[in-house]
């Protein structure tokens, strides 16, 4: 549905988007993840035809976003970072304008507006002036605006910004419900959002793609250096010496837990190696009581940090 090839955008001597390529299949939800200023918004603006790319191509539904811009614009719904609202209009009048400017045939307008109001749960706000609505409702009107003409592709730039936790959950459900009929790209810098709503994630940093995968795969692929955490009652020096004998274990950190003589230990084991059984055998063999032992898999947060700090991202790129 969406094909992006070697897309580059420079502003003066600053490169906002640097040779990125990815594809999105029909009905898929793709998450765009990256710190602020990573190039997410710029990429989305190129896809919607708002900005021309410096080089590279992007196609939506087979149409080039620059050469066939109008055809592309017929097929997309777009929620920019700030919802594009005419605040002195009522919600209903605003959506009516959007259906007109998006070329929805007259006989389908009323039902499309009804549908968008219902999906975003703002039917009761239809006759209110947009300027009187709270931030959360304005955001929902913005989302309604992006789907009111039933586009093939929906592009949402930070759709949950400014919403309270309950609204965030509602919006995520809404987005998940839209998948299948629509192809969706959403950007965010909030990680749980990606793991909860997206089929695939593009991690982007400084204009470059750091990784593309499913949220689950990203987590396992990067588990590489697995962390093991355990608690045992033992003498610190003896414990340290004993654990260091185990091959492949590094980066040991020991902290006392309370004053009971219990030590909490965190170690890293080498990629692909599970050190848990060896650690257990070693501690028990020495006769120390083992109180707790568990593997800690990296959260998406940590992966993200790993990928977006410079050297880590190079490591992942060369792995791919």
């Amino acid at each position, binding site marked *: 549905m969406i094909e992006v090839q070697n897309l580059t955008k420079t502003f003066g001597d600053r490169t906002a988007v640097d040779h990125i390529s990815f594809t999105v299949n029909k009905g898929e939800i793709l998450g765009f993840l990256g710190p602020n200023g990573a190039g997410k918004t710029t990429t989305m603006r190129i896809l*919607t035809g708002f900005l*021309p790319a410096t080089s590279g191509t992007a196609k939506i539904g087979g149409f080039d976003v620059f050469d066939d811009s109008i055809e592309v614009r017929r097929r997309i719904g777009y929620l920019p970072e700030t919802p*594009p609202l005419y605040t002195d*209009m009522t919600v209903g*009048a605003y959506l009516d*304008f*959007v259906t*007109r*400017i998006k070329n929805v045939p007259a006989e389908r307008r009323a039902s499309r507006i009804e549908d968008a109001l219902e999906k975003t749960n703002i039917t009761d706000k239809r006759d209110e002036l947009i300027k009187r609505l709270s931030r959360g409702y304005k955001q929902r009107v913005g989302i309604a605006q992006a789907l009111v003409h039933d586009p093939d592709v929906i592009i949402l730039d930070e759709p949950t910004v400014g919403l309270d936790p309950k609204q965030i959950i509602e919006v995520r459900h809404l987005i998940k419900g839209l998948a299948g009929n629509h192809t969706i790209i959403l950007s965010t810098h909030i990680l749980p959002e990606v793991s909860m709503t997206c089929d695939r994630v593009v991690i982007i940093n400084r204009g470059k793609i750091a990784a593309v995968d499913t949220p689950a795969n990203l987590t396992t692929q990067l588990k590489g250096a697995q962390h093991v955490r355990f608690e045992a009652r033992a003498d610190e020096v003896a414990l340290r010496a004993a654990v260091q004998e185990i091959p492949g274990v590094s980066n040991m950190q020991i902290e006392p837990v309370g004053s009971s003589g219990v030590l909490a230990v965190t170690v890293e084991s080498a990629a692909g190696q599970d050190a848990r059984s060896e650690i257990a055998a070693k501690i028990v063999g020495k006769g120390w009581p083992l109180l707790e032992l568990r593997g800690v898999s990296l959260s998406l947060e940590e992966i993200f940090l790993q990928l977006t700090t410079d050297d880590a991202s190079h490591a992942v790129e060369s792995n791919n």
Partner: protein
Amino acid sequence: MKGLYAVYRKEMSHYFVSPIAYIVVGIFLLLTGFFFTRILSFLIEQAFEMGMQGGQFGGVDVPSLLVRDFFGVFASLLLFLTPILTMGVYAEERKRGTMELLMTSPVTDTEIVLGKYLALLTLFAIMLLPTLFYAAFTFFHSDPAAPWRVLACAYLGALLMGGVLLALGSFFSSLTENQLIAAVLTFGAFLILWVIDFGSRGSSTGIGAAIGYLSVIKHYDDFTRGIIDTSSLIYYASFIFLGLFLTVRSIDSMRWRRA
């Protein structure tokens, strides 16, 4: 075409809820009403005095003078008021971020510009309309016979000059996100077009004539005398075209310069 109409429709409904449109139209009608009565009573007085001196009545063509003087005031009022009508046309959309909605919708930049321009012209015509009532009312009772053709010419001139002012105002509004800057730039440009022929008056050189030709008010004067000159029509048409063309280019350039 549908996109153009959608934009036009949106703009028109915006005027009906925006206080600015009401305020500008209200002030315009208040001032034109005031000047119309002042000019009328002054001219009648003068005609009466001259009639007394010359011994015969009707030596002064009051209706024609009324049209000329009244439409002279018209022009000065438009100079001040049209920048306020046009300042928000694009600046406000840019500031609110709604320009991004328009520019990612299946409408061309030209459709956006024409839709907005036609809406401005409509508002402008609505603003002029009530003045027609009191002009017409007075002329029904005038002696010598009312110069209807001159009046029609004067309105055509006002519409054309308004068309130029609105097109230029739209362009300046598309340059900035700040409505105040847009208004000041527009006003400055109008003033220059207004006074550009001051220095060249009476000069017979080619340059003087060329500069005189650029004056927006000089062509307008012809219309208030009941003269429709082709060169004036071309002057207004080309200025309107230039203004709209620059606006389209300016919107297009937004895509390239936005960081």
